[in-house]
């Protein structure tokens, strides 16, 4: 079974403005799809459409040749979405937040896997602090720790490197590299250059219309 994301003839609008139309591409396993485009070109909308949150005005998104919508549970379990917002509760600590995500992803509550995710991201020492007391970059890392809970095939990332320092960016890139190696796929937007990922596995989509 090929774990392939197919976008076909997609059209999205925002506030009566057509962002893009007739957009078609595929993301194969082991491939990283980098969405490029100026502010307001519809990158976030495209990612939200792929994740099923926003309905397209025309066209389809499919996963394994089945419609990729929120009601397709085999699809929603296959991807991890990290959007602009971190999705963290400010008054809970990192561990409590991640344990909640485990429940959402239908995983068994396991504090070990939470610990290992936090350790991989080198943030385990902060796990008992309220999110409120962490820096923007630390919060971002905890949001990205979701990617390491359980296994997933597709990562949908909206500006994952925002407010991360150089060391953390390299760390995340290495994780992406590992994910691609394990036949996972990634679709992301970012303004930071991807330095550690071989350009052979990067597939660039330009969203700017001329």
């Amino acid at each position, binding site marked *: 079974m090929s774990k392939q994301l197919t976008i076909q003839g997609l059209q999205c609008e925002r*506030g*009566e403005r*057509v962002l893009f139309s007739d957009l078609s591409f595929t993301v194969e396993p082991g491939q990283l799809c980098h969405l490029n485009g100026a502010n307001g070109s519809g990158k976030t909308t495209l990612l939200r459409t792929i994740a099923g949150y926003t*309905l397209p005005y025309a066209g389809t998104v499919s996963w394994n040749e089945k419609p990729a919508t929120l009601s397709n549970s085999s699809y929603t379990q296959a991807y991890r979405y990290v959007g602009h917002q971190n999705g963290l509760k400010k008054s809970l600590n990192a561990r409590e937040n991640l344990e909640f995500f485990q429940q959402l992803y239908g995983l068994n509550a396991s504090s070990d896997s939470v610990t290992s995710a936090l350790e991989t991201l080198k943030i385990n020492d902060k796990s008992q602090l309220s999110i409120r007391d962490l820096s923007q970059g630390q919060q971002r890392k905890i949001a990205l720790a979701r990617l390491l809970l359980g296994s997933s095939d597709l990562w949908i990332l909206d500006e994952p490197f925002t407010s991360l320092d150089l060391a953390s960016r390299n760390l995340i890139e290495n994780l992406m590299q590992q994910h691609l190696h394990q036949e996972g796929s990634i679709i992301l937007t970012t303004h930071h250059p991807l330095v550690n990922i071989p350009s052979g596995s990067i597939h660039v989509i330009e969203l700017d219309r001329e």
Partner: protein
Amino acid sequence: MSFNWFKYSSPASFYGISHSIIKAASGIAIILCIVGLYWGFAKTPDILTDQKEYYRILFIHVPAAWMSMWLYVTLVFWAVTGLIFNTRLSYMMAAATAPTGALFAFLTIWTGAFWGKTSWGVWWDWDPRMTSMLILLFIYIGYIALQNSIADTRRADRASALLALVGVICIPVIYLSINCPDPYQCAALHQQSSLKQIEKNILIAMFIMLFATWAYSFAIITHRLRSIILEREKRTQWAQDIVRDKA
């Protein structure tokens, strides 16, 4: 032989035929209204049981009440059609129906107040049927308010459609709770309105007026729909052509 049912569900092709619909429906509405009112004033007895001439307000009151309820049913029909088939025109139909429905609910209450003052001596009584109509008006207003408070058209359409659907599920319960606050002894309605007891000419005039309000609703809703279509499709070539031709 195949007939494309969805052909007229596209706003562009609907817009094309809508003008003749409006003309025909408003013509019918005017004729029926004249006939109905003439019949209601000239052919009917001056006294209905213990009520004098003022009972004739029922020629507005009853059709308005029926239409306000019927229009809610059509509104929900269009809303559900929109949610299922995702057709833009259905949402626009629902949006165009709501103000007319609200207007009729208001007219029902208003004319009812006059009738109540003359026959019961009060402008308003918390009689179950009056309360039901008031709540129907509230539900219309909630629908319109929600629709207007959401800037994004598609979200507004879908959210208000869902509200209309929830409303229609709640309406029977609301109706029951108002009519039967005491389940052992349902409150006596207005009065038993048995159509058979009513004098034949009154009935005829009432039904003519019912068709008149129906034709009026058809015309005015289609008219409103045209405006909504033009507003929402203003980016498209055909809508721009129409506006340019008019100018």
